[in-house]
């Protein structure tokens, strides 16, 4: 019996969601939650309140008690005004998407938002987040804007689409709940989870020594040069920086011999996901050295290059690689 009700509830709420989605479409990254976007229904407490007030009405009628009528109608009116106050607390809010950062599988993605109140009255107790859990924004003064974010745990590599968000409020009485569904077309890349460590390469396609962490070049100090964007922090000469205030970076001998290729074919035995995980570890290690490095996947080659952008490009390719087709998903 319970299962049937649950099934029915799920089917019903899916229908409602589809309807709302069709009705309002996809929201822009800066959304104005106009009145027509706000839904409002009584909470369970609100329904109980209605029953209590109705009982009072019957009592007042039966006893013909005017003070009872007065209290009943005052409570009725408080309920009616409560709908208005609750709706007003939400309607007209602006919600701006303010970016997110890629993470490794298993970490949680944080989608940043800014919630803005352009009206001349303060708002309170706004809840924002996913269907199951919402962060609370206690007070949003007139004309104020506040950062608020949504965290979603990632379990797998790939693209994580921002699910439908919910901005709701029960303020002030808790008898009604006004809410708006927000469907923004936002996604973030989830990199593969890096393996704890990656064994050295088994084959060498280019006839060069492929090395992991034990790159000879690292040991061979050649001098200092000025900082360039993308140099790893590990290589910054902190002591010199402290003494002179000049940001210098240590350079090592290496050149072509230090060039590292992180290659799909390095780990033929493993299954695709493990392979990607190992490659991610290798890519991270290669990035740490500050040397030039590149990524080879079937049908795709990135680099050699270095720096944060390159790192992201490679990790993104690993995240979105589809071993079935041998191609990176667009």
């Amino acid at each position, binding site marked *: 019996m319970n299962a049937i009700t649950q099934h029915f509830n799920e089917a019903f709420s899916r229908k409602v969601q589809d309807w709302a989605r069709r009705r309002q479409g996809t929201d822009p990254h800066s959304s104005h939650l106009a009145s027509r976007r706000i839904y409002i229904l009584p*909470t*369970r*407490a609100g329904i*109980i*309140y209605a029953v*209590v007030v109705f*009982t*009072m009405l*019957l*009592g007042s*009628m*039966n*006893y*013909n*008690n*005017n*003070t*009872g*009528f*007065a*209290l*009943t*109608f*005052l409570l*009725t*009116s*408080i309920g*009616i*005004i*409560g709908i*208005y*106050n609750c709706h*007003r607390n939400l309607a007209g809010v602006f919600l701006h998407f303010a970016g997110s950062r890629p993470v490794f599988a298993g970490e949680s993605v944080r989608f940043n938002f800014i919630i803005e109140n*352009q*009206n*001349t009255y303060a708002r309170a*107790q706004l*809840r924002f987040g*996913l269907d*199951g*859990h*919402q962060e*609370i924004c*206690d007070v949003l003064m007139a004309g104020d804007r506040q950062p608020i974010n949504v965290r*979603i*745990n*990632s*379990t797998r590599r*790939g*693209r*994580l*689409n921002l*699910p439908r968000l919910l901005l709701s409020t*029960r*303020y*002030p*009485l*808790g*008898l009604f709940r006004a809410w708006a569904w927000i469907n923004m077309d936002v996604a973030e890349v*989830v990199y593969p989870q890096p393996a704890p460590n990656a064994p050295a390469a088994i084959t060498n396609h280019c006839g060069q020594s492929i090395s992991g962490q034990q790159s000879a070049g690292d040991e061979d100090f050649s001098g200092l040069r000025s900082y360039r964007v993308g140099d790893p922090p590990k290589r910054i000469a902190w002591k010199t920086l402290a003494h002179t205030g000049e940001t210098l970076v240590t350079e090592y001998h290496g050149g072509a011999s230090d060039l590292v290729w992180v290659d799909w074919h390095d780990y033929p035995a493993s299954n695709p996901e493990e392979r990607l995980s190992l490659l991610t570890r290798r890519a991270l290690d290669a990035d740490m050295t500050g040397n030039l490095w590149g990524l080879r996947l079937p049908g795709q080659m990135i680099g050699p290059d270095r720096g944060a952008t390159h790192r992201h490009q490679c990790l993104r390719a690993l995240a979105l690689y589809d071993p079935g087709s041998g191609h990176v998903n667009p």
Partner: protein
Amino acid sequence: MTGQHNTESQSRERRRETPDASGGQLAWLVVSIVLAGLPHILHVHPWVPITVFSILVWRVVSALMRWPLPSAWIRVPLTMLGFIGVLFSYRQLSGLSAGSALLLIMAAMKLLETRGHRDRAIVVFICYFLLFSTFLREQAIWSAVYLVISMLVTTAALIQVARIGAVVAVPQAMAHAMRIVLQSLPIALVLFLLFPRIPGPFWSLPNVSSRAVAGLANELSPGDISELALSDEVAFRVRFDAGPPGAAALYWRGPVMDTFDGRKWTQRGTRQVTTPDRASRNGPAISYEITLEPHGQHWLLALETPLNWDARGARLTTAGQLLSKVPVDRRMSYRSTSLLGDSRYQGIDQAELDRSRILPTSNNLRSIAFGQQLRSEVTSDAEYLEKLLQYFTGEMFYYTLRPPSLGADPIDEFLFDTRRGFCGHYASAFTLLARAGGIPARIVTGYQGAELNPLGNYWIVRQSDAHAWVEVWLDGRWIHFDPTATVAPDRIEYGFDAAMESRNETSGNRLADNPLLLRLAMSWDALNAGWNRWVLSFGPETQTTLMSLIGIYNPTVEHFIIAIALSVTGLLLLSGFIQRYRERPRLDNLLAAYERLCQRTGKVARSRQPAEGPHEYLAAVCVQRPDLATELHTLFNMYVRLRYDGINDEQLRQKFLSASRNFRPVAD
């Protein structure tokens, strides 16, 4: 790859969404329960408030000491115990006292499991219901004031327990509740005024009040009314349209007794409806409005003899008595017009006349014989009645509130032995003697006199003004006789107090001696009278008057529903407009000045495109109107510096505002 948040984190997060009541929320709930429960303390069994108080203390201490809340294994048996306790103490679960005891226990028990918002809200709802049930018990002004304050606190509690996180400061919370209640007042008022009051209970009323309602009785056996004479309780208040009639005309007609079993008088007359015969009027007509206190019976009071009245469904019986359709269980107001003096009613019921001649057959025989003897000595009925009055004046009859108790032949004993009594005795004896002489006669009970409240310009009639007099059938009409007046005429002329004083008997606790106290008492009564008239006795009659103001003379339920719908919609729209106006987006005056500047420039040159910034627009306009270039440059540069360079220079701001205001370029 959506929906990656797993169920475990979801359930954890849901728990966080509805946390246990914070300390502040608990405090609000406890205060609400205490305020709502206080008026009930004296009306429930003493173990109930003690139990409730203990639970509250337990809950507060466990919150302070961070003890866990009791599990269901403790709560459920405890709640059962509470229910069984109420059932044992009251033998029922309904009824006002049992109900409030149950509500109090439920509120306290619910406090032990306030896990989520709904649990906390239910405690608040129970408090509302406790406040409501207080109104069923007590409707005086002072209790209304107390309940309004409690209701504000309870509403503040409702707002606070709905919060996630800490509660706000107490003054702020109270101000918020006050604001919401004030916002709600207009709609509440509309509903109060227009919600159709359907007279009559839907189900049998449990005895609301344990104390017996003092007032006139359905029967009269001399000795009963002495209780009433000492009661200062208000019977009704009356407001005369013009001046009041003389004190001697103030006979407020109530139950009419026409059946006598030798010991007590009862009203068993047919309830046939009649209308007074207008042609028989022999006195002036007088209009007035009565606010009647509830007495649980059908009769309505009116001056002799009512001609018309607006009490719904009320009718006039052949006994000349105004009867309400339903028992008067609440205060009610009605207007009436009476013809002063003796009246004839249309459609005389012969059976009623016959009944008014019946004499007891087995007792009071001495009185009957005495009457028959006296009648045979005179030639006419009128003469006989005159003789009877003379008898009461001539013999040594005394008016007293403490008459000796009478035996099996009460009227015999009163007439020939004790000769002490009050209105009931005199009216009984006079009626019996009249009947003995063959004249139909009956007793009319009601009130006599009234006391002016100069502050409210209305008259108060108290239970101590209760009176009984006689009507006899003479020359085809009922003639009014008051034998008591013959014995104690000053009572009739100057009121009860004066009569008591002259006989050296105290009447109780009237405040007439102290002018300040009297004034205070009168002010208080005036306040109560207003409260009764406008709030408590508001009913179908007042509503009909109200609807007639907008031109609906015979309103039906549909009329009221339409009126409510229209008024509420109108109020909501109005408040929506006001809110929208007050909260309209206002440009800051810098931007407003800039917009105006561009508008004026646009009239003499091309207008600014929506996407154009100040620099681009300035350049474009300067090409078009080189003559304005210098002036425009100054103005636009000021704006750019203020708006975009982050210069917060009040002087520059003022300069820009006034310069842009004075900028009035002329067209080519």
